[in-house]
């Protein structure tokens, strides 16, 4: 198994944000995590990416325990993540933002990194803003730029938090195709999104979270028919 998360938990000031979540992701699999606001999706992703330390539980990546590994260690182990608020470097150009990630991991020669960056910028319709400083980009362009920054490193595990939030609907298919391409390459993908139809279309397995716990887990087809999904969003 590429990623194994075992009973992780996180509280903030005595309030449990995540309570004993376990999940696994195989290579070449897309897993969608959905749930209402405050259900613990982003906290779970942040713990897997290493931005938040876990209170308890274990996280293993490719057989190695990474529970306490620093974010840059996880990143260098080829775990790529995008966040709810895109963390671009505002006063670097988008191109330099994208290249920096691959360079930091020393994942390829400079000319190869430049070529790969250019290819992803074109694929995600960012070529025309590639040399703009990041602070001048729109919200959607920032999200796509962050995605390009992750994909250029060809990670084995991709964690995406709301990758299409703010992105023009006409580009959702572009993002989906990029992720399918990564899936074919063998990357495991965890996708958190409020865009349920898009997530159901893309993910082979769906995890529904509510109140910091996993409520239901199953194939897109089964989850779509489960009445508890509607209850979670309405109550």
């Amino acid at each position, binding site marked *: 198994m590429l990623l194994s998360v075992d009973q992780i938990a996180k509280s903030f000031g005595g309030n449990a944000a995540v309570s004993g979540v376990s999940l696994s992701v195989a290579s070449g699999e897309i897993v969608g995590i959905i749930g209402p606001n405050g259900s613990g999706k982003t906290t779970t992703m942040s713990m897997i*990416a*290493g*931005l938040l330390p876990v209170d308890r539980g274990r996280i293993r990546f490719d057989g190695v325990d990474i529970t306490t590994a*620093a*974010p*840059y260690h996880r*990143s*260098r182990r080829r775990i790529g*993540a995008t*966040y709810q608020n895109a*963390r*671009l*470097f*505002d*006063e*670097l150009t988008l191109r*330099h933002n994208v290249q*920096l*990630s691959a*360079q*930091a*991991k020393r994942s390829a020669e400079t000319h190869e990194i430049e070529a790969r960056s250019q290819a992803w910028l074109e694929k995600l319709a960012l070529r025309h803003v590639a040399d703009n400083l990041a*602070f001048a980009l729109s919200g959607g362009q920032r999200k796509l730029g962050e995605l390009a*920054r992750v994909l250029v*490193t060809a990670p084995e595990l991709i964690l995406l938090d709301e990758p299409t939030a703010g992105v023009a609907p006409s580009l959702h298919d572009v993002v989906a195709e990029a992720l399918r391409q990564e899936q074919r390459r063998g990357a495991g993908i965890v996708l958190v999104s409020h865009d349920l139809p898009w997530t159901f279309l893309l993910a082979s397995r769906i995890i529904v979270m509510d109140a910091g716990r996993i409520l239901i887990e199953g194939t897109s087809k089964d989850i779509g028919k489960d009445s508890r999904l509607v209850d979670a969003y309405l109550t």
Partner: protein
Amino acid sequence: MSTFVSTGIFALTDGAIYALMALGLTLVFGVMRAINFAHGELCTLGGYAFVVMGALVPWMPPVLAVLAAPLVGFCLGWMLHWTLLTPRATFSRFKYGDFVMVATFAVSIIIQNAFILIFGPAYVRPDSLLAGSFPMPGGSMISGDRLVSTVAAVIGIAAVWWFLRSTQTGRSWRAINQNAVGAEVVGIDVRRSSRAAFAVGCALAAFSGGLFAPLFSVYPTAGIVPVTKGFMIIILGGLGSVPGALVGGLLVGIVDEFGAVYVSTAYSDIYGFLLMLAILLVKPRGLFATATRQF
């Protein structure tokens, strides 16, 4: 006219060396979000390193001997960060920036007393970087020392500017400066980068001290006045801003020199402070401070 031009030349030359020193301070603050209170002593160390190198290797041209200053500064900075300033879990009760401030203040006292023990309280002066004086526009003259120091400071500043803009490591430091968490998640080793930035900051302090040495001599507390100006410069320029350090350095050089010549030399150290206060009244975060700091 001649006085005005020669004062202007002095202002630019002093400003360039101040800017070099302030660049080190702002680099450390930008990457580590911490102030190095031993910066002044590292400046003094650079002066002594130049003097000692000249004495140990008398055949070495002074323009090469002065390069001992940044070398010694870099090594000491690296060791200080490695032994004392590397963030550890036990720091959790303190803010890291506060810890660095107190720790480097302690280091500054230790280094200053070490200077007194080793070199004594007397003034020492290294060999001249370049003997003689040279004519400048407006009929004024500039000493060889001042000329070489200024050229070396400008080269040092240009090298740091190029490094930050054009190298992968430089871009990593700028990334940390803008968003340390973001830098970590894209795979940048922030701790290692901080150590390197601290060492380079110390090297710049020592280099500026080496360049000041032939102009003002070296003594155990020689770094206090320059580092005070260095703090003034980074505050008025904007903490963590490289353009702020450069422009601030030149502005402080200008008001210091013109104030001393056209107002009074008795208050030569307060003109920069008055400028700083005036700027902070209009721009409380300094001239070049931005929401995301800028290298």
